[in-house]
């Protein structure tokens, strides 16, 4: 299947731009730690779309973007696990996950 004649690369990059900035807005407007983590996952996904699209369109003879996307996914999974451990710990100490109420380093 030749995708290049059907869908220009610009469509893919515009799509990933939209998703990235939607995720950024989510980080900026939400106060809940879990929602902010979800927005960060959205941003990482947008980056992955870009890597894969550039690999497919510009360097189809190599697999650089493929492995970059794989590594980003592994880091995203590790990051989500650490973040959720922190969130659960914060909830135990403060009984809330809102960033406004968590304002002490030492308790």
């Amino acid at each position, binding site marked *: 299947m030749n995708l290049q004649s*059907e*869908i220009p690369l610009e469509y893919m990059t515009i799509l990933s731009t939209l998703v990235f900035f939607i995720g950024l*807005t989510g980080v900026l407007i*939400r106060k809940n730690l879990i*929602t902010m983590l979800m927005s960060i996952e959205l941003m990482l996904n947008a980056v992955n779309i870009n890597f894969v699209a550039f690999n497919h369109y510009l360097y189809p003879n190599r697999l650089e973007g493929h492995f970059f996307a794989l590594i980003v*996914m592994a880091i995203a999974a590790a990051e989500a696990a650490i973040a959720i451990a922190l969130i659960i710990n914060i909830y135990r100490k403060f009984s809330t996950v809102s960033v406004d109420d968590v304002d002490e380093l030492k308790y």
Partner: protein
Amino acid sequence: MTGPKIIFFVLAAAIVVFSILSIVNRKILRAAIYLLFVMVAVAGLFYMMNFQFLAGVQLILYAGGVVVLIIFSILLTSQINSKLEKPRTSHLIPGVITAVGGIVLSAVTLLQFTFKPSQSASVEINMQTIGLQLLGTSEHGYALPFEVISILLLAALVGTIFIARKT
């Protein structure tokens, strides 16, 4: 409109609509489910571009792993029926301005640049190629990143247990 084009636009519309819904919805569990839909649509996009292995990893790792972990932590930390507070206007306005400004800036820059599609023949992506390159030490080998990632995952595992344990 041909087949791939229709599929692309359906997937793109799903990705954009569900990601907007997942950040504006005030019920957090629904937001997590919308995030799941985004992940599945992105996996479809990878499949369209002939990266079957990556699409599978996306489904297993994101849809099966990260979203389940997020739902798990939502259930541990908040009541199901509780609604998130409305974003304050003093946060909403800068956030939306940043998003619109960033999208316009990036889109203008992107559309001014002309990408030259490659004419070289595409490599066949099967498990053998992926495995050989992932553990290869020659020119296109990724043995070092692979080992670094495995150490990172070990560190994340130990760190998560250390952080989340009860003292």
